[in-house]
């Protein structure tokens, strides 16, 4: 419990800048987004017509059709985008966290030059997703890119990294994992350094091998950090990939890199469809809100644990 200063007006004065910004630039826009989702914009993007729930209906109607073969297919493009986004996020989050945990375990050794290794492993955190797009665009160029030279030497083929509906999303995933590796490694390293070494010592004396120690002690001890990273990486994979995608692939071959945020951007900027873009924002908000509620619960648990 902290000591309390007594002043009737000062706390409000201290809070005022934060509250003004939050009300004007976060709360007002979020309410206005919900409102806009009930309207359709004229082709000029400005004049609005009230359409009720039509945007939601258009976005979510699965449009199930029967094919000639008698099977049913979903013809709704947005459902595809949602599925694609979830695949993207799953790959970025799971791939990214596994890679970072592996790197952190290797770097968590009392070696000479440990701090230099750490810096050399985490610096890509400072590189902007757009810049990563430029770099990977060049590295994976099928003709002059260095990756295909090596690939050709090993496998004898030259994959079209930027022209293939499977390889292109994979490339975005790799680039995104690379960018976020440093951030994740920082947190995993701090987690590893807080693990109770007596416990590991005891397990070791009892004959637990490295894998058992990892599964039974290290991984469970890291679970609060893993969960925190799960949430931050998920948000990252939803939104921050946009810069990389826009520069590296755009919508991608067969729309294969058109994820939720990219789809929203296209409806807003290219189709000038404010209503549909707002409706997609609402959908994303629902996703993010769900994730944040989970995050706050775990953070709370950790704070109580620390007290």
């Amino acid at each position: 419990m902290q000591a309390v200063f007594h002043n009737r007006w000062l706390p409000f004065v201290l809070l005022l800048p934060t509250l003004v910004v939050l009300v004007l630039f976060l709360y007002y826009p979020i309410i206005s987004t919900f409102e806009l989702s009930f309207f359709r914009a004229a082709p000029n993007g400005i004049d609005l017509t009230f359409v009720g729930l039509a945007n939601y209906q258009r976005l979510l109607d699965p449009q199930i059709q029967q094919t000639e073969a008698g099977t049913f297919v979903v013809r709704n493009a947005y459902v595809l985008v949602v599925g694609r986004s979830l695949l993207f996020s799953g790959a970025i989050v799971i791939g990214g966290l596994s890679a970072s945990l592996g790197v952190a375990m290797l770097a968590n050794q009392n070696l000479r030059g440990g701090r230099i290794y750490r810096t050399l492993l985490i610096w890509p955190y400072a590189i902007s997703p757009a810049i990563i797009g430029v770099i990977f665009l060049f590295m994976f160029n099928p003709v002059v890119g260095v990756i295909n030279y090596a690939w050709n030497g090993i496998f004898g083929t030259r994959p079209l990294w930027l022209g293939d509906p499977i390889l292109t999303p994979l490339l975005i995933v790799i680039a995104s994992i690379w960018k976020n590796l440093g951030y994740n490694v920082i947190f995993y390293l701090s987690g590893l350094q807080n693990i109770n070494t007596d416990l590991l010592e005891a397990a070791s004396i009892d004959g637990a091998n490295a894998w058992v120690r990892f599964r039974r002690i290290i991984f469970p001890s890291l679970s609060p950090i893993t969960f925190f990273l799960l949430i931050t990486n998920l948000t990252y994979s939803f939104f921050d990939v946009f810069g990389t995608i826009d520069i590296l692939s755009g919508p991608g071959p067969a729309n294969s890199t058109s994820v939720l945020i990219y789809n929203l951007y296209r409806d807003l900027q290219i189709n000038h469809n404010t209503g549909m873009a707002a409706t997609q924002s609402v959908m994303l908000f629902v996703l993010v809100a769900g994730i944040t509620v989970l995050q706050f619960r775990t953070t709370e648990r950790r704070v109580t644990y620390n007290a």
Partner: protein
Amino acid sequence: MRSMTMRSSRRRPKYFSHITLIILCFIVGFPMVFSIIKSTQNLGQIMAYPPNLMFGDRLIENYSAAWNSNNFVRLMGNTILVAVCVTLGKTITSMLAATAFVYFRFPLRSFLFIFVILTLMMPTDILVVALYRLMGDLGWTNQFQALVAPFLASATGTLLFRQHFMNIPSELADAAQIDGAGPLQYLRNVLIPLSWNVIGALGMIQFIGVWNQYLWPLLIINDNQRQLVQVALKGITINALDQGNWGVALAAAVIASIPPLIVFLVLQESFLRGFALTRDK
């Protein structure tokens, strides 16, 4: 950690760990090293097959071409200015807000705290549709304010400072009150000097955060003179590709990476101390 380390070093020699780590650092660093090398080459060296991974002879030509193209200096200046304003602004507003929450009891305190926390659920990317219209109403389309004002408050920052202030021994505030110091003097003379690591950690996140922005500046700024450098890189890259001049595009990408990298190198220790490493202690 120490005993764990000792055990693993007993099991396998240290040079094995060194080699693994060096290979890892190489893999992590490769994209940037590759870009730096290619940014010094001429077209023939860039297009060479097998790929030429030696430094070329166009270092000065490519970098000066990048520096002088498409208002590049101006774009860098824009981004640095926006990053500095947002970082300073966010740090100040969230420090003041945290002071109010920790050191005062006032009506609606819990409500206002939740009001701040809830904004964690509202990343700018989901607000762009409405924010775009709001900027139009304010006459801020294409303006510097549009890149700064919406980012001048931070729930993360408020939470981080609040957590840090709550861990500062309350005897300090008691003593300050007995000495007759007011809250603002306490903030200036005690809290700020004790918070440099948190300020550094937050500063690093915010500064790099501005460099990570893309969608919002892309939508709200149509004037190439006023754009942020990372967004303008797309145009620079497309131009360079048209002219077959990869070296210039990569030189621009390398230059644009320098400010956030410097901030990262300078502040990484306070980031580790102010945020990550002290997290569970």
